[in-house]
């Protein structure tokens, strides 16, 4: 198995930079040969996470690109609201939680505790069928 390509960036937690992050995520997904819909899903997942993460400071994002798959790490973040939102079960019928959104648009996600009460959100998105 080949070594994954790694891309890391730090961006302000500022709505004005959301399009920049979105463009970068799209470019990474394009390199991983994602279909349009899978790319759009991953962009949406990260967009929603950053929207819930507040607007203070910066956020680190890192991506590991292997064949047909992207693993993304978002954080460390200190956001009680985000941690609380992701602790909600995502399979409760009729509830539109952040977890429900993530579980719909990515193949898996998880939350890990980091130092000083921070959390890191890990996402895995598979490219889907390609030609």
């Amino acid at each position, binding site marked *: 198995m080949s070594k994954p390509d790694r891309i890391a960036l730090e961006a302000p937690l500022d709505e004005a930079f959301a399009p920049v992050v979105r463009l970068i995520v799209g470019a990474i997904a394009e390199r991983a040969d994602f279909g349009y819909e899978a790319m759009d899903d991953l962009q949406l997942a990260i967009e929603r996470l950053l929207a819930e993460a507040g607007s203070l400071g910066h956020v680190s994002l890192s991506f590991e690109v292997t064949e047909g798959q992207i693993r993304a790490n978002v954080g460390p973040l200190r956001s009680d609201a985000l941690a609380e939102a992701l602790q909600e079960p995502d399979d409760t019928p*009729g*509830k539109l939680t952040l977890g429900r959104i993530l579980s719909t648009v990515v193949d898996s996600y998880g939350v890990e505790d980091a130092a000083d009460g921070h959390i890191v959100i890990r996402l895995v998105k598979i490219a889907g069928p390609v*030609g």
Partner: protein
Amino acid sequence: MTEAREASRERARAEDRELLRRYHELGDAGARERLVSRHLPLVRSLARRYAGRGEPLDDIEQVGAIGLIKAIDRFELDREVSLATYATPNVVGEIKRHFRDKGWAIRVPRALQELNARISQTIDRLTSKLGRSPSVAEIAEALGSTPEEVLEALEVGSAYTALSLSAGPGGEEGEGDPLDSIGEADEGFERSEDRADLEPALGQLDPREREILRMRFEEGLPQTQIAERVGLSQMHVSRLIRKSLAAMRDELAS
């Protein structure tokens, strides 16, 4: 000749009024459908005025048709005006709101707007042809463009301004939505006061946006299937999902 044309118009108005009466007084859904069908040429004519501004004409017509339906639903039988006269500002208003919500006001270069409009059609065409979602490289190849240009055009096309949640569906402050009833019967998401949920803001959305969210996150349908069901392009569905979620988040934060 003029008299014959005037007589024909008068007959059409009388038929409209009868259909409106059947719909509003008797709840005849078939009459409503006939009204929509009879006035679609008006919608197409108005939509053409907004062609070439970076949006596929089909999408503009779809948006305009929503304005027509709202006009039919809002029409009061004691009005002296014809349905066509009453519907025109509704259709135009809906189209203008669509452009405003899409954020074209950010002065996107025309070349990128045009590429964006072509991308929307190309995605739908390639999805149908390939039986799967096309990659950016495939979209770029079909358009004679580069992946980077496609990504940039996708991004400018996805720019939006969050819908004012205090505005009615036609953009008017404080106005109720006559289409609300469409979303009520099958509205799957329950309301909640939980901080982690977006449901408290769900009711602020347009019925069509609620329905799209329900299909995506309750039924788990992919964008392609949702696009087929609601008769919009896949890109348009994507934008509506993003806009709706952002608007709901903003509503909760306010």
